[in-house]
């Protein structure tokens, strides 16, 4: 297991006012016509179509996978999406439905969403998902330990889960809505990056506020700094609270302006969302047909 000195977890404080201002500035760009069309296509390819509810069923997951393969039946040129994200017990259903399509199967693990369980249970949870065929694991950090200042514990746990993942990509959910300060977000990002995360992800989607522009900007900066330091490229996933195509395009602008167009790739930037895709499809059809669309005309799942 990797070991680092605790001094490695120290981060410079965040200038909150400057961060908010920069994020707000990046939200003012106007994206129209062809750029919008390309942007929407990119958003679709970066979407982790997600269903994380107690009432999920194999049928619902199969329907979601169908939508992941072919988001818009009237336009096969669009899609597929980046991944389908489900609970571990439904991974096998998704794997079967998505076989041979190139769509990844992501599973949330480690006692998602609260992360309140023993290390053993969390690792078993991860192994269960990997054994069922998940190619991406979305883990949650131990926020209790993090907020108590036990950064080493958080670090060790990410390392252990990374090992349990094997070849599967590891996304580390920071749950920024529970971290309270930008400084904490920067520190949690740093810990996850040092521990070998392939992606750092904002939220579970179960806590509000979920993904916000300043928080994602901060995480992108952390990822950039990590790249400059180590040469390793790590992705960012913005999850929760992104509901409209317009918001998603603003995130793409931010990615491009902060870390550069190399990150404008499903391997390095993702949206975790369930309702975002339909709004993107509505905008897509509007660009093609010229008429405003009706939400009911697009399948909910």
């Amino acid at each position, binding site marked *: 297991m990797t070991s680092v000195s605790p001094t490695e977890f120290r981060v410079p404080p965040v200038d909150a006012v400057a961060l908010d201002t920069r994020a707000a500035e990046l939200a003012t760009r106007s994206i129209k016509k062809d750029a919008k069309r390309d942007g929407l296509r990119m958003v679709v390819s970066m979407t982790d179509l997600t269903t994380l509810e107690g009432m999920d069923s194999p049928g619902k997951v199969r329907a979601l996978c169908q939508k992941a393969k072919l988001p818009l039946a009237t336009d096969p040129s669009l899609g597929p999406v980046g991944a389908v994200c489900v609970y571990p017990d439904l991974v096998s259903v998704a794997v079967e439905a998505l076989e041979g399509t190139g769509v990844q199967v992501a599973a949330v693990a480690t006692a998602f969403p609260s992360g309140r369980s023993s290390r053993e249970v969390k690792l078993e949870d991860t192994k269960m998902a990997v054994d069922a065929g998940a190619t991406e694991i979305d883990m949650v950090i131990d926020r209790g330990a993090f907020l108590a200042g036990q950064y080493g514990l958080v670090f060790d746990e990410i390392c252990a889960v990374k090992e349990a993942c094997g070849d599967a990509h590891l996304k580390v959910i920071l749950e920024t809505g529970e971290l309270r300060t930008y400084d904490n977000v920067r520190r949690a990002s740093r810990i996850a990056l040092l521990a070998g995360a392939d992606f750092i992800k904002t939220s579970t989607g179960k806590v509000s506020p979920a993904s916000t522009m300043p928080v994602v900007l901060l995480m992108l900066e952390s990822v950039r700094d990590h790249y400059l330091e180590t040469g390793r490229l790590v992705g960012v996933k913005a999850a929760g609270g992104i509901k409209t195509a317009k918001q998603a395009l603003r995130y793409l602008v931010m990615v491009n302006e902060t870390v550069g167009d190399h990150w404008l790739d499903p391997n390095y930037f993702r949206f975790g969302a369930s309702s975002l895709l339909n709004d993107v499809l509505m905008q897509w059809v509007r660009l093609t047909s*010229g*008429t*405003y*669309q*009706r*939400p*009911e*005309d697009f399948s909910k799942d």
Partner: protein
Amino acid sequence: MARVEVKKTYKLFVGGKFPRSESGRSYQPAGAPQVNVPRGSRKDLRDAVVAARKGYGDWSGRTGYNRGQIVYRLAEMLETRKDSLAEEIRACTDSTAAAAKKETESVIDLTTWYAGLCDKLQSLLGSQNSVSGPFFNFSTVEPTGVVTVIAPNQPSLLGLFGVMLPVLVGGNSVIALVSEDAPLAGMALGELLAVSDVPGGVVNLLCGKRDELEPQIASHRDIDAILKAGKPDPAMGEAAADSVKRVRYADLSDPQWKKPAEMRSLLWVEPFVEVKTFWHPVAY
């Protein structure tokens, strides 16, 4: 020192709020070239549709009785503002003080008439049907959805209420395009709706150029029906056909528009409700 009068900036009314046009544009209506009013854009229309769709869930779910109370409250508010509304009518037209007063009073009377109609719609438009078998068979009416009404140019306020009220009392949410040439009284209506307990988004008021907005209204897929004052318009019907939108025309002559009695009819409400028929076994 002489007091400086505070002039009102007329705004749109969308989702219970008073935004300027997102386009930043305004125009000087033909009836009152000294006043700037917002010139609503396609985006304003789209925002209004989103607001109306949100408001629809609340409004359509209320009982007819409650809708009646709220529409009656609107009449109360109109009564307190009738002088200023009459002035706003006169500011855009050459009508006399007496005629403007009469128009506002007609508007108030029409509003109370429709308030009373709210809880009677089910009895008047629904029915219990006799069927062969041990079943009850009921037909009930439900609102159509989001309806856009396009008011006549004149009379500016009575015409607006004539097309808006029958749609509203049926439980639909309304996007109203007010008189293009005389929009002042219509745009002031938002100030009354906002204090009448009409939930935000249930009535949205836009003003702007007909030529610009009508094709968008016709083609927007999330608008369920249109009531347009004026002669049947084949272009609008064609554009609306793609989304199977119901289009009705209030084709009244100028003298007819001035007679409130012309507007007091169930026939105005009926096109904007859907009949649902259901069977229920007779219990023994």
